[in-house]
């Protein structure tokens, strides 16, 4: 029987967490029960990106995109769609505004504005099968590079494509390759930085899980270009699925002669090893990463010398991020001009963002550079959850900043984000609404930086701690106006004085919130209040007499018995003894309790 249908089940970590592995099993079982296993194939792919609506099952060639599939609906899909050719309506994505069902992936607003280059195979192929990658033009770019191009030509293409480092810094990839090529040494290394650690970011993980070969191919091409024979992938131990799939990919590539000695019969030999990191955020910094691979403490060292000159084991080393490598094969195949036609003047191509926070469609998107924040949040992201008011979007993780509503129409690229006091970072994008306190958000990111600081230099080790203490003081209502001055001065000094990128950017969340949301800081310091109602110490609970019906529910749940009042009469909170637990606020069914 010829194969007539394929069911693609999302195997990204997000969908797996929503039980997609079980969905896959159920699909297979049901198909076997119907004795269709020879004509219908079920396979697990990488991440589709639409995590909000996972688990996702896509039926091909019918091109039907099912969302939120559970065991029962999986059986139904087999029963109805696979066997009888009837689409299971209720599992088709429903556009919230028009309530229209959109069965095709490309017609769903979440996907409409996406251009998938780095994620080109995620959700399309089985990442554990090298043949599927090859069938999607996989390793074609490597073959072309090895047989038709000189290393200089490869570097030239990458340079002209305008590809910049996707790990955060945005350094032109071609220039980095060229510098490493020019460093004289018989041994050189390629390192793939997969130490993704920003809170809420999962771009690199999804690529490694969904299309590990594209990263291996990118690394091999880079190896050829700079003259390296060996590569390391530094990936955190918290990514077991990515590591598992990488291992399979490496061994399959070796078996097929696409890694190892004399690749494709040429003189070029290149192999790859996985190094598992212990999950220190600082190891994403390239010199710290090198120290960690060498078995030392993951701690940055002074640059220059740059890794391109003195890197791993003191040899010239080229370090790129996962997404950067994944972009390389399509650039080689489609040409520098194709890539550079996408994006803005100085930032070419696409960028993958992990969209998270108070947005309707949480997930992974790949969009052309130059798209506006508004398009991502409202068109792809479907707007703010619960119809709340947008307040800010945080980009760049703990190194980035918070961008307010007035800059929503900024076209995104490396330079515009920097100008706003934020940064591209590796692509985390966290949306905040009116219920988020920006002082508290700054504190959250600073806490992260304090925890993840390697402790080497004074500015970061002690400076960030002191900043955090000032922020604590402010959110506890003990702040004074001088504290704000001190906070700003300290933040600027830490940026100026720290040894590595972590310390040099860790004050960004504080500085950007102070720049755009200074009124919230003032409210905390002068009025001793938290406008968003987040900072517990500053909250005051009131009962609105007009709304209170005297049901006594609040008085009953109050753990410290400070709500008084006769039944059916207006109640009052004695704020002296109130511990601000919020139980009354949550219990009141009449909206009679408010907090400021």
């Amino acid at each position, binding site marked *: 029987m010829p194969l007539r249908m394929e069911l693609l089940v999302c195997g990204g970590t997000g969908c797996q967490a929503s039980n997609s592995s079980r969905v896959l099993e159920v699909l297979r079982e049901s198909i076997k029960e119907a004795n269709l296993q020879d004509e219908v194939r079920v396979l697990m792919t990488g991440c589709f990106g639409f995590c909000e609506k996972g688990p996702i099952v896509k039926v091909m060639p019918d091109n039907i995109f099912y969302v939120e599939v559970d065991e029962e609906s999986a059986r139904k899909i087999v029963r109805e769609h696979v066997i009888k050719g009837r689409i299971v309506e209720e599992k088709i994505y429903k556009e919230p505004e028009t309530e229209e069902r959109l069965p095709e992936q490309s017609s769903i607003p979440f996907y409409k504005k996406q251009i998938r280059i780095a994620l080109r195979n995620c959700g399309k192929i089985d990442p554990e099968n090298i043949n599927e990658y090859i069938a999607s033009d996989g390793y074609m770019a490597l073959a072309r590079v090895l047989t038709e191009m000189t290393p200089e030509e490869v570097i030239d293409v990458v340079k002209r494509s305008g590809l910049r480092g996707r790990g955060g810094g945005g350094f032109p990839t071609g220039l980095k390759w060229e510098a490493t090529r020019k460093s004289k040494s018989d041994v050189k290394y390629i390192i793939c930085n997969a130490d993704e650690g920003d809170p809420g970011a999962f771009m690199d993980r999804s690529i490694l899980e969904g299309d590990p070969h594209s990263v291996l191919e990118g690394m091999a091409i880079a190896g050829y270009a700079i003259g390296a024979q060996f590569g390391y992938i530094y990936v955190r131990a918290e990514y077991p699925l990515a590591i598992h799939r990488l291992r399979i990919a490496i061994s399959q590539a070796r078996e097929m002669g696409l890694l190892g000695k004399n690749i494709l019969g040429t003189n070029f030999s290149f192999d790859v090893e996985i190094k598992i990191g212990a999950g220190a955020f600082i190891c994403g910094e390239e010199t710290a990463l090198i120290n960690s691979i060498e078995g030392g403490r993951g701690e940055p060292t002074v640059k220059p010398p740059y890794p391109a000159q003195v890197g791993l084991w003191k040899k010239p080393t080229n370090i790129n991020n996962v997404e950067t490598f994944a972009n390389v094969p399509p650039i080689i195949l489609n040409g520098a001009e194709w890539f550079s036609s996408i994006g803005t003047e100085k930032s070419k191509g696409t960028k993958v963002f992990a969209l998270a926070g108070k947005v309707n469609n949480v997930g992974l998107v790949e969009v052309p550079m130059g798209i506006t924040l508004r398009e991502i949040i409202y068109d792809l992201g479907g707007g703010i959850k619960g119809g709340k008011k947008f307040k800010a979007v945080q980009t760049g993780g703990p190194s980035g900043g918070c961008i307010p509503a007035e800059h929503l129409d900024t076209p995104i690229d490396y330079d515009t984000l920097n100008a706003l006091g934020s940064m591209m970072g590796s692509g985390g994008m966290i949306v905040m609404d009116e219920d988020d306190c920006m002082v508290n958000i700054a504190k959250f990111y600073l806490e992260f930086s304090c925890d993840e600081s390697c402790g080497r230099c004074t*500015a970061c080790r*002690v400076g960030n*701690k002191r900043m955090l203490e000032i922020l604590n003081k402010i959110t506890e209502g003990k702040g004074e106006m001088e504290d704000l001055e001190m906070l700003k001065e300290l933040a600027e000094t830490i940026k100026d004085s*720290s040894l590595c990128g972590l310390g040099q950017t860790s004050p960004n969340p504080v500085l950007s919130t102070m720049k755009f949301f200074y009124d919230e800081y003032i409210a905390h310091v002068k009025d001793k209040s938290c406008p968003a109602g987040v900072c517990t110490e500053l909250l005051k609970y009131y009962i609105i007499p007009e709304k209170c019906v005297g049901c006594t529910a609040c008085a009953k749940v109050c753990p410290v018995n400070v709500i008084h009042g006769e039944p059916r009469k207006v109640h009052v909170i004695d704020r002296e003894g109130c511990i601000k637990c919020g139980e009354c606020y949550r219990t009141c069914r009449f909206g009679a309790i408010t907090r400021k």
Partner: protein
Amino acid sequence: MSKSQKVKWQALERRFNMVNVTINDIKLQVPEGTTILQAAKMVNINIPTLCHLDLHDIKMVNRTASCRVCLVEIEGRRNLAPACATECFEGMVIKTNTKRAIRARRTMVELLLSDHPTDCLVCEKNGNCDLQKLAADLGIRKIRFEGEKSTYTKDSSSGALYRNPDKCIMCRRCETMCNEVQTCGIYSAVDRGFETVVAPAFNLPMIDTQCTFCGQCVSVCPTAALTEVSYVAKVWEALHDPDKFVIAQTAPAIRVALGEEFGLEPGTIVTGKMVAALRRLGFRKVFDTDFAADVTIVEEAKEFIERLNGKGRLPILTSCCPSWVKFIEHQFPELLDIPSTCKSPHMMFGAIVKTYFAEKFNILPEKIVVVSVMPCIAKKYEIQRKEFEENGIKNVDYVITTREFAKMIREAGIDFTKLPDEDFDDPLGESTGASVIFGVTGGVIEAALRTAYEWITGETLEKVEFHGVRGLEDGLKEATVKIKDMELKIGVAHGLGNARRLLEDIRDGKRFYHAIEIMACPGGCIDGGGQPYHHGNLDIVRARLNAIYEEDRNKPIRKSHENPAVIAMYKEYMGEIGGEKAHKLLHTHYTPRERI
């Protein structure tokens, strides 16, 4: 620039490309690879530093750039640069004293102080602390930052080395010294962020580590995070106890360094004043460890000649340095048959005092308290070793360092520089030039050669100085000495890293020597862990070295076996050199230890 510096400079100019730089509007040319700090020094611009330490001659350069105190502004650079670790490039324009640089520098010192006990008035390093001096130099009058201070467990488990991590400023000098120069690897940074501290693996108590207590970490620690365990109070107690007969012995390296503590030029020989000071402190007898050094030489020369004659294994290794003894026990347990079995001189001395001297002067050994004044911290550990007891009586009761001794002199109100010169007491105060040079690298082997030569040949040695084994610059020295028809190959190592290289070669059969001298501290005891702090100025150590050789030249007797008091002791009490009684009292054995 001194003449020798000029010569060095001209050599540098020939070897390297020169680059043009401008520092505070002064234009100058420097060789490629020169740091901003070095360049500034050439034009007499002083940039404050803290973590930086350049002990170039012993290959210890701390360039961690962690304190961020030496930050300067470089035209065209986004952030400030650490002068100590940033190399000059062509056309570099540097400003060391801009508002920005000064603000950052002051902030760094304030931040360090905000996490420091600031108990300067009662601190061990009061007046000798680099952080204190820096704060004074910068005119810090207020610490603007308040907050949590680090508190850690203090460690005096070894009875030798005292760790107070509360005072650690994370300069990492100890780490560089211990890991790179001494290759013991005791310290590394532990934990993250504000909690980061330099500590042994698993935070083990020092006594459970492979630390040799050489004290070189103490020598370079800028604060009181690492100091010695002090026995000053115990010594005072003994001195004030009428039932005790307290005897002092002084190592050769004390007399050439003690003067520094009282403002005398480095290298001033203060033997007479030192003896006078000890008397005034209340010591009943003031003896010289040099006497026991002469005993060591005759015992060791005897052992050496026996081994040359086929009784035992070659090479013979000197065993005067307790730090080095602990090193070989941990690192080369398979080589424990090659060190001489001789105790270190001050342990021999203790044994002699509590037997020969006690009998001769009819004093009960249990009433005698032997205090060793040593340049050494390891000797504090050594006296606790179980093998150094006779009938439950310790050979030596207390060890105090040169620094502790100076403190006692000051506390007692003795005006050291005005003291008359006095002589050691008889009979254990008699010594030779051979024993004086025990205090410097190459000295022990030179002293041994002077005796061995005469004993082997039966002839008088006219030229007693063996210059081939002298000097600070080379960590590993080799010399061939012709005695009769034999060519003796001599090896000398100072610094444990050099000792490790030498021992590895011996273990692997790559090198052969007849005799080897090893001292744990670079330069030998003159630069011991208990000596006055040199604050990075190795010229001070060089001056001590020259003084030692001067003291040797001034001695009427320069060969150990000619020491009349030593000859008398063997005749009256000890019997034959290397005989049964000598072996019982003057020799020891070694214990294999684990590496951790």
